[in-house]
């Protein structure tokens, strides 16, 4: 029941703000339900034992098609559910950038989290797809209503681009549904059942590619990534928090849950090409990030680079690599939102995010600068941050699987450090730019949002095993099964 409780809490949090009149109450309601759902997910974590799917719930929904409301979590999805509820809390605490239709804003934030949590829990492909599509709509409006100057272009690009992936994905789902029907005479969208399909190799390759295509767009993986910087630059801060924190993880999660579970042989056969795509993504994202002038597009492209590690871990498919990839999803899911909050606060206080128009910000905003340095260190995977544990574990797995090829990934750490620190040098350190007008240091609500994420990042960096333990149990079983 606990999973439905989490979903219901998030859904209530997304409906109730529309019904109240005051913006303040709407925000309080959203924070309250986000907090409850976070508490519920932590409770689920404490009840989670051993490995395999737990808290399973199953109700018939459309029996004639074999569609059911089927939820459960395992070591892959539980961390991401926790991440979703945590970011719901952070995003509602951080709130709206400039007061405008606040009630709807909080409702849409919570609705995005509701959809994402559903994606991570659903074990029925149709239900999965419904949640997947639910996420798109509120995010579209978040960008299109509260976005920056080019919000129409960005929101349209976002919805079209990710929708192309969805369409191809649902076609693959239908194909598998139909094949299962042909083989057994039973209609089902259930993940467990469909995984038993025996599909001839050629068709398996086509289905595998169709499935990973949708997830590659979502993650995003080079060369399907350009919707992301556009969406991030225009999105409101809380929107970016969710976009980077959990929407990208839907792609990484889906990759493991569907194509890699259904077609492990194909995944193994294509390990090297996928690894090369991953390595290109890591370097490409990092180099492109270095060329950015807008802090938000820098962070967006750093996300591309970091999600490359997730794909690299998937390609390697050793237990260590899978653990690293899943942990990287969580680590990036706390580090990247922090960076976006830093950029949002900067925009709020200094009126610009353009690096060349900043300079010496540390002089006027020391608390902000302290958090910014911390966030950048989390971004460049300094030890004692969660990202380090993740990337390091992926690298172990990659070296196990790919030997010499994996050695080429390591220098990415220099490029990553390069763009984060080059931006810090120009924007945060150096002489104070007299043209800037800075309106004070961070506000209390911004501070709380930042502080929560910093605690998560450093706690998991110092002592990862509470989370890493359940992930690794999953990975060992997963790698043994495929």
């Amino acid at each position, binding site marked *: 029941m606990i999973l439905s409780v989490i979903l219901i809490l998030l859904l209530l949090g997304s409906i109730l703000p529309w019904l109240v009149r005051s913006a303040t109450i709407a925000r309080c309601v959203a924070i309250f339900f986000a907090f409850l759902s976070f508490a519920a997910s932590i409770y689920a974590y404490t009840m989670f034992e051993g490995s395999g799917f737990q808290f399973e719930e199953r109700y018939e929904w459309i029996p004639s098609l074999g569609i059911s409301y089927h939820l459960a979590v395992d070591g892959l999805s539980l961390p991401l559910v926790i991440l979703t509820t945590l970011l719901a809390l952070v995003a509602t605490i951080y709130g709206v950038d400039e007061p405008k239709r606040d009630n709807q804003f909080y409702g849409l934030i919570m609705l995005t989290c509701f959809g994402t949590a559903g994606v991570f829990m659903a074990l029925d492909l149709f239900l999965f797809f419904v949640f997947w599509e639910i996420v798109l*709509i509120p995010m579209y409006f978040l960008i299109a209503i509260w976005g920056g100057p080019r919000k129409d272009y960005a929101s349209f690009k976002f919805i079209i681009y990710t929708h192309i992936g969805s369409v191809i994905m649902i076609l693959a789902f239908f194909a598998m549904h139909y094949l299962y029907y042909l083989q057994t005479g039973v209609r089902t969208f259930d993940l467990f059942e469909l995984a038993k399909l025996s599909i001839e190799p050629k068709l398996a390759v086509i289905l595998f590619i169709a499935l990973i295509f949708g997830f590659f767009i979502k993650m995003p993986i080079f060369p399907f990534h350009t919707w992301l910087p556009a969406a991030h630059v225009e999105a409101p801060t809380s929107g970016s928090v969710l976009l980077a924190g959990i929407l990208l993880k839907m792609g990484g999660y889906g990759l493991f849950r569907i194509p890699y579970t259904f077609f492990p042989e194909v995944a193994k056969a294509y390990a090297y090409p996928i690894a090369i795509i991953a390595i290109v993504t890591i370097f490409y994202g990092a180099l492109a990030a270095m060329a950015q002038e807008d802090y938000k597009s820098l962070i967006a492209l750093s996300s591309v680079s970091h999600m490359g590690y997730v794909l690299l871990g998937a390609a390697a498919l050793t237990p260590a690599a899978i653990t690293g990839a899943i942990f990287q999803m969580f680590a990036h899911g706390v580090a990247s939102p922090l960076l976006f909050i830093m950029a949002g606060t900067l925009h709020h206080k200094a009126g610009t995010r353009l690096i060349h128009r900043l300079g010496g910000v540390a002089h006027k905003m020391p608390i902000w600068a302290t958090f910014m340095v911390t966030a950048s260190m989390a971004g460049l995977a300094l030890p004692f941050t969660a990202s380090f544990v993740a990337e390091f574990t992926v690298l172990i797995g990659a070296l196990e699987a790919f030997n010499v090829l994996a050695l080429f990934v390591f220098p990415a750490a220099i490029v990553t450090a390069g763009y984060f620190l080059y931006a810090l*040098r120009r924007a945060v350190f*150096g002489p104070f730019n007299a043209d800037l007008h800075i309106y004070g240091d961070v506000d209390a609500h911004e501070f709380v949002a930042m502080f929560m994420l910093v605690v998560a990042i450093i706690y998991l960096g110092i002592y990862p095993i509470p989370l890493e333990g359940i992930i690794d149990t999953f990975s060992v079983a997963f790698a043994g099964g495929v």
Partner: protein
Amino acid sequence: MIEYSWLIPIMPLFGFIICLTAGYRFTKGLGEVAIFFMFLSFLLSLGAFIDVLNGQTYQAKMVWAVVGGKEITFGVLIDQLSALMVLIVSTLILLIHIYSMGYMLPFIKTNKLSRYFAEMQLFSVGMLGLVIADNLLLMFMFWEIVGLCSYLLIGYFYRKPEAAKAQLKAFLVTRAGDVAFLIGIVVLFVYAGTFDLLKLFSLAPEMDNFVLTFAAIMLFGGAIGKSAQFPLHVWLPDAMEGPTTVSALIHAATMVKAGVYLVARTYPLFAMSSEALTIVAYIGGFTALFAATMALVMVDIKKVIAYSTISQLGYMFLALGTGSLFAGMFHLMNHAFFKALLFLAAGSVINACMTNDIREMGGLRRLMPITAYTMLAGSLALAGIPPFSGFFSKDEVILAAYNTGDMVLAFFGVAAAALTAFYIFRVWFMAFTGEYRGREHPKESPAVMTSVLVILAIFAFSTGFAKTWLEGYMEHFIETSYPHEVVKEGYMQLVLEPNEALMALTVVIAVASITIAYLGYVRGIPIYRIRDVLKPIHTLLYEKYYMDYLFEDIFGGRIGIYWARVTGWFDRVVIDGVVDGIGKVMLVSGSVLRKVQTGNVQYYLSVVLLGVMALIFYFTGVSP
């Protein structure tokens, strides 16, 4: 006490948290807090060291993570090597914290001292943790923390553009070494299945020699970055933009020693591979001479000492590479004290004269006698004049190099010794003798600073006498801690037979160099004419062999920024151009869609609902 040694790095962590959080409210008393916690750390280190002297060793660990079903443990390892190192490090951190109380006062108006002490405390956490870590991964993690603090403290005066540039350079150049280090430990983990040092040592004799050599060279790559060896030495002279206390603590006495300590700590791996040791010896020996040549011509007092540090670290690697763990550690210990002394004395001079340029000093011997004579003690130790500490250890290093029979290595050692004696006395004579050439009114520093100088001068004088004791101590360490095969079949030199002729040669050369410096800079014999004769060489040295140009303009500018711009352009124009192009092809459908886009949420939701229903009907319709 030894069982409490895990608290050694925890103590400054409290100091860090207090300085970080209270620093926004309180300005006074933070230094005292930091010193208090460092003093506790020092006592714990001393206690651990005494227990080790009584024959105890200690290892305790806990599970930190699980990777692919393999547990990764973290813990502390206190044996002869780490106990000695942790005592040296905590003593120096404590002394330099005390000195900071006087030194940092003039900056209190423009820069927050809370930030200074918070970062110094975090550095202490990292450095002490690095020393007592019982496995390579934990070492690496603390290694990066000290790198972060080095980055932050170099940029302490971040409003100076040079400082902001230097901190970036320091981080990125050492990061290149760190990448190699990380490759090394990941390779070891994949092949040996553990990060634990003692387990790795016992597995080392059975490991494939190629893998072992590769991993050892990669670990040394990390050491090259951190200990500023050729070709990654370029960051250290620039790092002098930080406060002088930071230069003394991080960039002379402790952090840059981490590379040497890493090689010493993982010595059983190196001792099994002659190729790895040869590389260590050659890089170290070459750097010793190479950096000393640049120190000859610098006019910034801190830069001279910085190049001197690089050179002396080269000596330590030369010792380790030629198989003498004892000589390397001995020189590390001596150098930590006398180089900290030189930097702090230089800091005292800089605060008095308000400049780093030795051409604007002079005659300070009379104005600030304590600084002058303590610095003289440090200079004698560095130059290797008996009975100062540097003499004993440098002699051991050169002896170890000579014993290998490779005269190139011995030449590196002797030639660098000659240059060392010259450049440090060039500085001393120019700063402290003759007439004062600056515009300030220099006076002696406060007692809180000079007392530290005196303590360090006593160390600089006396630590050399510990030679016989340390020889026995290290021998005992090797016997008890290393697998038998490593010592028997490895490439190690245990006890070095004294060689009086070599010893006399190095002393004569050092004295001759000091005499030349005396004649040139005190007696006024125009040896600087040599500079005019050898103009191209002088320029080459003064321009640091153009290696800054190589790193900043070629690697940073031409390759780094250029490729980033190309990628950025490619991303914007080619990839996004294709995407938008496809979008424009669909303009017709787009214009239709735009009419549908009314902005009415209920409308959108009902369309979605209709779609879902249509889908359901479609499927239920065809179902049997």
